[in-house]
Each structure stands twice: as C-alpha cells, then as structure tokens.
C-alpha cells in the first residue's frame, strides 16, 4: 500500500464527527476516493457486522454460529480498514472509533437494508424472534452486490482503497457462497423453510432498489475516477440473484414504490436502536482509551 500523504482535509479536522465529501490524493499522480464514499463503504460494513454478530451464541447449529461469527468478524475488519483510511485522509483528531462511535444516525451512510433487524417488517420498537431466513437473504442480496463492487474497486487507481477491496473481495466471495448455499437449502428444503425464505425475499427485495440510485458520494467517486458506477453492476447482480433464486425455487418479487435512502443519511426506524446500543458505552466515556 502506498504511503498516505498529509491530508488536504486538515482544515476540517474539527469536524471529524461530521465529515463532508472531498478527496485526498494518496500518492503523487494517483486518485483518491472521496471520504464520504469511503464512509459509505465503512458504514455498510460496521452496520451489517453489528447485526450479524447478534447471532453469536444463538445460532441454529454450532457450526453455523461459528460461521456467522466469521462473517461478522470480516465485516468489522473491513469497517476498521475503511474508517482508518477515512480518518487518515481527514487528518486532525479523526480516528476509526470516532467515526464509528461518535457520528449520529443521520451521518451514517449505510444502505437501509443492512440496518433492519433479523425479522419481517415490524416497527422500530417491536420485539420479535430472530429469523435466520431474513439473515441469510440479506447476506445473499448484499453479498451479491459486494463481490461486484470490490471486484471493480480492486482496480481503482486509489491504491489504498484498491488494497482494501482486494482483501474484502475474497471475504465477500465467501459470504456470498455461504449465504447462497443456505438460501438454496431453505428454498428447496422443507415447506416451512421455503415459506420463510420466500417471505424474507419479499420483505427485503424492495430495499435493494437503493443499490441502483447513486448518491452524491458515489457519483463523486466515479467522477474522481476512483469509484464504481453502481448502475453498471446491475445486470451482473441480476444474473447472480436470478440464478440462485431459481435454484432455490423462489420467486423474485415485483418491486415498485418507495426507494430507501439510507446512504443519503435518511434511515429506517431501526438504525437509531442499533447505534444506541453500539455507541452507548463509548459515548458514556468520551476520551477514554480501550
């Protein structure tokens, strides 16, 4: 990985908790992805890592408890690298933990899909048993996107981002494989598993529309030559998804209407609870080192 030069964003250091876009070159003649775009990737990873870790100790079978812990660990690891990269480029007193723990809900740039609890459609303060089909379908839909995103970013002229992408691509391939395997077992397993998988697909599919509506940060990353045009990935994503759904004997639902806007900072009712839990202890001891 190339050395990171002092950030041009030094003057924004006081705003570490409220990062705005902007790019910092990571090496002479190379292109830097906008910080806001790196944060979008990092927030995706931390939020889904946080969600999947909720299964630790509660998995449907011991082997799967361990496997889901692995997936979660990969996401937290990706989040750390991405936040570290963003923090370095922001300069000042920005750190990975300030970005993860001291930004508010409206500053999070993750897809809404990733913050939903592991159950069907319910309001933010509803309580429900976790449903493994929801977990698997989400990991599948998002995993199918991320193998394409990381594959493209691996070739990014932003060498730091490309290095993270190369590592994350290997992990994403495993995540997709793992989720697709279970999705096929559920779809083509028992009546109950089929019904649960179809319900999860119906519930979550509309949230994937958000993948295909580029945000300002995504557009800026493309303009800077360091990002990926998400819309160009849609056909490949469709192919992965349709093939697996068909093998699983599941039906892809028609989607229309509201398109979620998590990556613009407008979230569901669920992210506030997730962040409240995740950030509470760190925020109770500002300035403490752990």
């Amino acid at each position, binding site marked *: 990985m190339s050395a990171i030069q002092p950030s041009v964003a030094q003057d924004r250091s006081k705003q570490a908790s409220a990062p705005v876009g902007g790019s910092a070159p990571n090496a002479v003649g190379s292109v830097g992805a906008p910080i806001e775009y790196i944060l979008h990737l990092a927030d995706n990873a931390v939020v889904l890592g946080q969600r999947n*870790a909720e299964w630790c100790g509660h998995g449907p079978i011991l082997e799967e408890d361990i496997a889901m812990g692995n997936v979660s660990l990969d996401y937290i690891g990706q989040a750390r690298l991405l936040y570290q990269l963003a923090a370095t480029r922001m300069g000042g007193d920005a750190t990975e933990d300030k970005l993860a723990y001291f930004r508010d809900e409206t500053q999070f740039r993750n897809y809404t899909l990733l913050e939903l609890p592991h159950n069907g459609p319910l309001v933010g303060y509803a309580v429900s048993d976790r449903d493994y089909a929801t977990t698997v379908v989400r990991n599948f839909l998002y995993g199918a996107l991320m193998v394409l995103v990381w594959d493209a970013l691996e070739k990014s002229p932003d060498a730091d981002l490309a290095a993270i992408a190369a590592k994350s691509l290997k992990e994403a391939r495993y995540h997709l494989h793992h989720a697709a395997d279970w999705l096929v077992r559920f779809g083509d397993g028992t009546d109950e598993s089929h019904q649960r998988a179809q319900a999860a697909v119906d519930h979550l599919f509309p949230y994937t529309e958000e993948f295909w509506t580029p945000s300002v940060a995504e557009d800026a990353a493309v303009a800077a030559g360091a990002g990926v045009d998400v819309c160009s990935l849609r056909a490949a994503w469709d192919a992965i998804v349709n093939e697996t759904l068909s093998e699983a004997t599941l039906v892809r639902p028609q989607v229309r209407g509201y398109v979620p806007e998590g990556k613009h900072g407008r979230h569901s009712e669920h992210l506030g609870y997730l962040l409240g839990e995740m950030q509470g202890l760190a925020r109770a001891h500002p300035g403490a080192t752990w």
Partner: protein
Amino acid sequence: MYTQSFSVPDNAGQKNVAAVPSTENPELMAAFDARIDADGRIEPQDWMPDAYRKTLVRQISQHAHSEIVGMLPEGNWISRAPSLKRKAILIAKVQDEGGHGLYLYSAAETLGTSRDQMLEGLHSGKAKYSSIFNYPTLNWADVGVIGWLVDGAAIMNQIPLCRCSYGPYSRAMVRVCKEESFHQRQGYEALLVMMQGTEAQRAMVQDAVNRLWWKCLAMFGPPDADSPNSAQGMRWGIKRISNDELRQKFVDATVPQAKVLGVTLPDPDLKWNEARQHYDYGQIDWQEFWNTVEGNGPCNKERLATRVKAHNDGQWVRDAALAYTRKQQQRAQKEAA
C-alpha cells in the same frame, strides 16, 4: 474456557456415587490398567471399562457444554464493545469458545455418544456445565476479567489434561490450551489499558474483579477431602492434579499479576505464607457454590433457557438442511438409474 466439573456429578449435588464395581473381563482390565500405569494413551478403538467410558463422556461433555454456555456471558457485550478493535477481539474469542465446544463434542462422540444425546442432557438440565457462567456480566471489564481469570483458571485445569489418558481428549486439550492462553493474555492486556485510563474505567475493573474472584477459586471444584470422584479420575489418568493443588497454583500465579495491574483481590486473608511458600487465602463459600451448581444461581435459568431456545428456534434450519440433502441424494440416484 472451562469448568470445575470434573468432580461434579451430573445428577446429584454433594452426594457422590459409590466406587465402581468391577464386573469387567479381568484380562482386558489388566491390559487396560497396564497401559494406564505405563502412562500410555487409550484410543477410541481400544477396549476400555464401562465406567472409564462413562466418566469420560460425562467430563468431556460437561466441558463442551461449558464452552457453549460460556459464549453467552461474553456475548452479552459484543454489541456494546466500546471500540471496533475490542469488538473484533471479543467476537473472535466467543467464536473460539464455540470451536472448543465443537472439538470436545467430537472427542466425546468417539466414545459412542452423539452430540444430540449430549445436548439433550444439557437441555433437560441433567448435564452440568461450569458454574462460573451462571453469574451475570455487569460491566465491560467483565470481558477482560473473564479472559484473565476464568480463562486463566481454565488453563490451570486443562494443561494437565493435555497428558490425559484418553487420546482424543488430550489432543483436543493441546489445541484448546493454546487458544485459552491467547484469550488470557488478551483479557489481561485489555485490563491493563483500562487501569491506565480514567477513574471510571479503573472502577469497572475493580468491580468485575470483586464479583468474579471467589467464583474463579470455586471453579477448581470442591476441596480434595470432599471429592471422591477425583481419586478415581487420578487412577485413570483423567485427572492429574488435585483440585486444591490447582487452586493453590492459580492463586500463586494470580496475586503478582493483580499487583502489576493495580487491582485488589477481595480477600483480607490473602497473604504470603513463608513456611508453605504459597499464598494463604480465605474460606470459599461452598454453600453458594453448591446452590449455583444445583441450578439456583443468579443466571442458571437464563443461560439454560437461552441455549434451549437457540436449539429449538434452529430446528427448522437443521430440518431444511437435512431435507435438501435428502432431495439431492434422491436426484443423484435417479440420474444414476
């Protein structure tokens, strides 16, 4: 991490089973005894007395259950870990404990008992697991203190088991001990950082030590005088060092670590005995220990019910996997036909 439970019978409390009547084939028994006396290993295909097999299944499955139930008290802090680094370390640790459970269930399966049978024992409340996990984790420092003291006590218990007479168990222990040592160092390191931090962080560490210290001493099991199972276990090379000896080793190793850390161990009687060349320590509350072993501790019901719920809620997932595999086999047979 591990368990006091070598010497805790599954069903009863303090009342222990009588010595095993020897109705075994005398020739086979003599060969078995000779192998044990020569410090040799017993392997799954070897002949072994029934009582040896039963004792091992009980001990290994209690150990496996402890690993699995032990995921819960620390899992309680994953979502709230105060930094991403600590969150990652904690997820990895809880996952390792699940892995220990897996090796141990596999080791016990070599003795002819299925994982389902063992889980049935746990879920019905018949099989025990380490009582240390029946106490709540009330602040973030509990995670570090569990690593330092509970994994530390587990290592003391388990190092001798790396030389245990049953091959698959001893080999599992070699791998488990390496990981437990890593957990212990990570836990201690997390506490060092907290003790160098704010007043509130130091108070958390001291509070966790105050709550967990005596429970860790009890992890080594009842005093030798009250542990008839231990004698049989020693004879068979399943247990190598007595409860009291292990407990003393743990105290002696931990006191200097506590000093470096800057925490007080909550025992006014804890002091160096020049004559014994060991630390003296106060009276363990065995009444409280047995209460908890018998199911009446602060978290027994929550821990067990949570394991049962995970298992029941996961039934449809396991059923789906099985149904899918069967369908695949049928399809393959049809194609072949």
